[in-house]
């Protein structure tokens, strides 16, 4: 008998053909849906709209800072400041070493041959390979002299000229003229310019810390450094540390508070613990409600009563989590091994004792592991909630992004958030292993 005539052959082949169809149908459906989404989300026009130059600015700003050299055209005062901020300002009359001032003339060396000169009547910008751009006030407007045709990196109107080169940016308006030079790194991350430790190298700092003479006789150099870093007016390390603390606090209180509240409720919602079906049903709907309404919405609802602050955020997480835990804990309770419970029951133990010895030892690992798991995800939620409730690292981050100014701060916060979440993740993993194996 050959295979083709085997009585099972037709059924088998039919089975394979059916499976072939199924195997194609599923990916085809997925592709179809993605196509639909492609047009529903209007992706084609998105490509047209996407601002890759924004992305480039953002990427470079993540890891760079700029120093402003500004002249107020009304008073003629020239000053330099990192990021143009008061805390980053060079003391009056002093400049970074690439800026020099003689009389009314200020020369700014942007490197690679790019030189900007502010003089009494206007300003010049020498760009290698192009020529010199010269700007003078002219009546109510500005007079621009530059090799024609004007390239597109010069943006000029009657009242404003801006020049953007790789070496730096330059703008001239009637009220002021400004030059920006970009540098890599997070400048003044440790010490602002008003600190005696600013601008010193690692070796120098180590030497000062260990055996150098006291710069400020009132305090040791190490204490001075710690103080200056902690009170850094540009990076606000103290505030940031406080914000991280607030975020973790919200997650911690919300998670464990939620778990503590959910545990007794879960007993009341478990089929094998509470015979009252209507009570169970009602509780379950309450769980569904509190967890279905996201923590963010709870935050908004609660902020009227509790006002801004970390407690409001913690309560919002607590409410959401109580629902989530209530559901999962009661499911864990329904899945317990009845044998252990029966063993305890057979000795004449009362309800509380049965719960304590017949149920709790069984579900502890599940409870602990679920609670600790959500600790990590709640740290992330707390970041988001903080942005609304006015606290924590989330607020700092969203504000930094929304004001779209200091992207290096954004980068700093993102790094901290990632580190914070990863730390909470490994901490919860470590606790999980320790507690569940050890107990």
């Amino acid at each position: 008998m050959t295979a083709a005539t085997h009585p099972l052959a037709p059924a088998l082949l039919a089975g394979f053909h059916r499976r072939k169809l199924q195997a194609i149908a599923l990916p085809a459906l997925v592709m179809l849906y993605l196509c639909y989404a492609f047009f529903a989300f209007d992706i084609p026009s998105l490509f047209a709209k996407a601002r890759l130059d924004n992305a480039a600015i953002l990427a470079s700003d993540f890891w760079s800072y700029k120093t402003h050299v500004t002249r107020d055209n009304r008073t003629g005062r020239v000053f330099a400041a990192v990021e143009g901020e008061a805390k980053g300002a060079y003391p009056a009359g002093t400049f970074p070493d690439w800026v020099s001032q003689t009389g009314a003339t200020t020369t700014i060396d942007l490197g690679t041959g790019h030189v900007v000169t502010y003089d009494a009547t206007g300003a010049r910008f020498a760009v290698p390979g192009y020529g010199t751009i010269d700007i003078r006030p002219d009546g109510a407007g500005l007079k621009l002299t530059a090799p024609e045709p004007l390239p597109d990196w010069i943006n000029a109107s009657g009242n404003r000229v801006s020049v953007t080169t790789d070496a730096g940016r330059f703008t001239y308006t009637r009220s002021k003229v400004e030059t920006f030079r970009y540098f890599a790194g997070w400048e003044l991350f440790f010490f602002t310019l008003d600190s005696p430790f600013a601008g010193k190298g690692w070796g120098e700092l180590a030497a000062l810390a260990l055996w150098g003479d006291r710069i400020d006789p009132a305090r040791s150099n190490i204490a001075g450094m710690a103080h200056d870093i902690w009170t850094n007016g540009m990076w606000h390390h103290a505030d940031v540390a406080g914000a991280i603390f607030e975020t973790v606090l919200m997650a911690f209180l919300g998670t464990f508070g939620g778990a503590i509240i959910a545990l007794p409720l879960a007993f009341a919602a478990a089929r094998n613990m509470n015979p009252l079906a209507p009570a169970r049903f009602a509780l379950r709907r309450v769980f569904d409600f509190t967890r279905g309404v996201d923590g963010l919405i709870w935050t908004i609802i609660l902020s009227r009563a509790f006002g801004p602050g970390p407690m409001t955020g913690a309560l919002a997480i607590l409410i959401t989590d109580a629902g989530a835990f209530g559901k999962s804990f009661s499911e864990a309770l329904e899945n317990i091994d009845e044998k252990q419970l029966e063993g305890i029951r057979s000795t004449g133990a009362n309800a509380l004792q049965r719960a304590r010895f017949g149920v709790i030892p069984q579900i502890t690992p599940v409870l602990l592991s679920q609670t600790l798991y959500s600790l990590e995800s709640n740290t992330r939620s707390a970041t988001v909630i903080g942005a609304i409730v006015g606290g924590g690292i989330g607020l700092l981050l969203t504000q930094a992004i929304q004001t779209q100014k200091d992207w290096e701060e954004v980068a700093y916060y993102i790094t901290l958030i990632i580190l914070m979440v990863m730390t909470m993740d490994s901490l919860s993993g470590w606790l999980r292993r320790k507690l569940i194996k050890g107990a």
Partner: protein
Amino acid sequence: QEIKEFNIGILGGENAQDRMTSNECYRAKIEEALGVPVKLFTPADYDGVIQGLLGGTLDMAWLGASAFAKIYLTDAKAVDLALTKQNVDGSTGYYSIAFARKDSGITSLDDAKGKVFAFAEPNSTSGYLVPAAELTEKYGDLKQYFADVKFSGGHEQTIVGVANGDFEAGVSWADGLGNWEDGYTSGAFRKAADAGLVDMNDLVELWKSKPIPEGPMVVRAALPQDVKDKVTQLTADLHETDKDCAYGVAAGEAKDFIPVTLDAYQGVIAARKLQEASQ
């Protein structure tokens, strides 16, 4: 009647952190004057402060005119008006300014018909309430007049959004002093231009609103009278006693903080009522 603490809500187009820093001296002064702990809160949007004042968890705040109107309309007795900011030129107002990209070819609001137009957020006075009211009066239903009316989320987002082409035109605020190419002397345009986010050469002004009253400083009405008085007095004297601190509180140059009454905001309140009714 005693108070145990005093909470201040601060808004503004700055980083939460910078807001804290520039108001720290102010906080310390009030703490000294009242003898109770004083805390600063920097909610992410107007609504956070509004809810705080309504709920009684914040005791004092500087508000936008529209946010004040919202509180007033929700509960007229919730807060007392105290002071407002007087500009260096003696005026107590600023402007809402509609703008577009220069290369879009739009030069007036008449050109902007059928385009995508952006406001800041519903609680913003200059970013929504006043311009929406004035434009509605002039052009009728804005949803009909423009192709789409969007909320960008804030003044900065509107400016960047228009510069990026996400929106074809929008409104933001400025004090109306100085030059357009600098982004005026203060306001959202100036900040964006100074930060290098936009080049003012790329933008054109389409329209300027009537002067909008500066937002008030309000204190919660339920506070003991002497607390209200102390805080108000301290703030009113701030420009005389501590110039630098006043600069931080006013978020820029200002002449003084002067008393203000409900009259100054009747227009805004009316506009808000109108908006509500039109929904």
